[in-house]
């Protein structure tokens, strides 16, 4: 019972190991990284972890796609069923029943829905992703934000497929975008992805504690959709507000919806027109902003989105500490 406590026999590390000739491990030389676990939130460390785990993010996204669409062409075609149906429904309701006289209304719808589908699919999917993947979250240590981000990744892939469909449609029907505004799309897309990621990360963490967040998000998303000029136009809103001079400020509140400038940028570039005339009347659909104005709005939005993203990371980090216990 009097064995040495400080230097147990098995604790003597061999400096150079030659077993099997395949190991290269030498303690204390190559692995000087120190991981600190405590109750504090280290934003910089989290961002670094996200970056070093980008392989994992890709893999999680691929996994999600594989599981959902079985990695087959037909699977991806299937994934287009939902957005296509939505597009057809709105087209029928507004073109056939409500008799809008806006030309190329399908393209207008498509441009807006493209943005909206990415945002809503990601936010709705991410809300339940941490709860759904409780098995991993409880047993494996990795940056769990990646789960929410992988849902955004899946939405981005579906976005890409829809873009291909849109381009094909435009080529087939000979519709030209406004080439001057096309360079804005990458900026708008980045802002959209950053904003969506922030929302997704935030919602995925909150849902662990408040499990009805998923239902609330669905309702919120519906209201948000109708609060964004996708099936109707910006021009219709300003037209209504023009009749009530006292309500001029509503326009700016309306613009505070981060999705609106992104949707409008896509519409401006893809739909290409800011107005059309019908039966002698000129209808404005989009503001007459130049490229610089759009870029300015998108720039502000991007900065705000980055701020929101970081805030979401902090909230996530705060809530994450007890995920393993709450799930």
């Amino acid at each position, binding site marked *: *019972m009097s*064995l*040495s*406590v400080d230097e*147990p*026999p*098995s*604790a*003597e*590390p*061999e*400096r150079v*190991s030659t*077993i*099997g000739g395949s*190991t290269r*491990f*030498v*303690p*204390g030389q190559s*692995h*000087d*990284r*120190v*991981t*600190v*676990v*405590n*109750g504090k939130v280290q934003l910089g460390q989290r961002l670094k972890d996200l970056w070093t*785990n980008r*392989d*994992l993010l890709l*893999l*999680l996204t691929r*996994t999600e796609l*594989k*599981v959902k669409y079985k990695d087959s062409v037909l699977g991806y075609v299937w994934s287009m069923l939902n957005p296509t149906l939505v597009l057809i429904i709105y087209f029928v309701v507004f073109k056939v029943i409500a008799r809008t006289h806006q030309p190329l209304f399908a393209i207008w719808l498509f441009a807006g829905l493209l943005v909206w589908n990415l945002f809503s699919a990601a936010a709705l999917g991410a809300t339940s992703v941490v709860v759904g993947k409780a*098995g*991993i979250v*409880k*047993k*494996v*240590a*990795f940056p769990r934000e990646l789960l929410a981000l992988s849902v955004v990744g899946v939405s981005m892939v579906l976005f890409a497929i829809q873009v291909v469909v849109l381009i094909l449609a435009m080529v087939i029907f000979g519709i030209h975008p406004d080439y001057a505004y096309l360079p804005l799309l990458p900026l708008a897309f980045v802002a959209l992805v950053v904003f969506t990621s922030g929302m997704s990360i935030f919602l995925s963490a909150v849902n662990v*504690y*408040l*499990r*009805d*967040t998923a239902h*609330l998000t669905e309702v919120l998303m519906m209201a948000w959709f109708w609060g964004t000029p996708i099936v109707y136009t910006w021009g219709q809103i300003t037209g209504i507000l023009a009749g009530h001079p006292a309500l001029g400020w509503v326009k700016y509140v309306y613009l505070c919806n981060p999705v609106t400038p992104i949707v409008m940028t896509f519409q401006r570039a893809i739909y290409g027109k800011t107005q059309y005339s019908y039966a002698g009347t000129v209808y404005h659909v989009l503001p007459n902003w130049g490229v610089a104005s759009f870029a300015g709005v998108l720039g502000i939005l991007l900065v705000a989105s980055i701020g929101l993203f970081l805030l979401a990371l902090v909230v996530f980090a705060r809530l*994450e*500490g*007890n995920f*393993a*216990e709450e799930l």
Partner: protein
Amino acid sequence: MAAAIEVEGISKQFRLYNEKHTSLKERVIHGGKMPFTPFWALRDVNVEINQGETFGILGRNGCGKSTLLKCIAGILKPTSGEIRVRGSLAAMLELGAGFQPDLSGRDNIYLNGSLLGLSRTEIARRFDDIVAFAELEDFIDNQVKFYSSGMYVRLGFAVAVNVEPDVLLVDEVLAVGDANFQRKCLDHVKKFQREGRTIVVVSHGTDTIRQNCGRVMVMNHGQVITVDEPGEGIRVYMADLLGVGTHPGSESGGIEGNVLAIGTVRAEHGGSGARTHMYPGESLTVTADVDSLAAVPNALATIAIYDDKNELVFASDPDDPACEMEIPVGGGIVRFVFPEVPLLDGTYSVSVGVRSATETAIFDLKDQVTQFEVANPGRATGRVRLPLDASFRLRSAAAGSTGEVPAVSAAFTPLAGWEETAS
């Protein structure tokens, strides 16, 4: 030697809610109030685990050992305190955690490897090793949901050990698969040890701890009881936490209608007085107070020993003449002496009875009235310590002339002997 893991004043509070409101609706209805009882799963835990050490954590369910492991792994965040881990870390808290049933074994290796912190190229390089280790060459492109549970766990283990971390955390998962695979796992653990990697094992299995660990930490109620070498640590774990030792015996029973009654039963071993536990090989004496209303000329005393799983270890031979005795009016003391008890670790209970040697009548039987505890300072495991002698000699050519080579130390270092047979 630098510390691989420094645990500094770690406390972790869980909230035990009387009624948990997991939705916003319920929160609003109840005005946001959620009464809870704070529960400290860890209380000011301090420990330093050295680089290259195999460190065991023992404790009964709910003592906080798994919580501590999760904190070290970074899965749970401590309420206060700090943990510093030097080098890369992989945790095996559950084998195959994160496997996607719909994906093939191949895809799951990549997914699981990435979750454990490997990059794509690192996994690609180790892929064949992992598949070979898991013995799943023929099934690697099948969906994991069609795997048997053994295949599933084998794949999980294969990925985890091939991550080759500097620090490996293991939570009671060593006992998986068939005997052959278990040996492979243990081989791998040994290889890790030789390579100077740090291993932290949480287990109920004192045998696993004794055979593999250099030091043991015993925990109870979220606190550290002791950090010591395995033999002593396991003894503390057995004695203090399970609350057993040499009991003073049962209260004496009255004589009511029966001719004979057994009173106090005591177990005394070679180390009694100095220790509450005995070592393997020491003597054990069991005494039983017997009260008798009448003379019993042909009494047969019986004794039986049970282990902690209530399995019979030993029952005396009813034909043993030493157990036949004559008990006079008033009674006396029955003495059973075991000159040498070869039992290994455990808590054993003793039953004593007196019956008639000629008829079937049982006068009295005290079932499992007293206990004794054996703690083994050595590293042998199992139920009994069998006398062992091992030696080595050359095959027939040398048999006639040179004779036997002097015995190697196999008998005294089971680990070395074990490795010989395993390779």
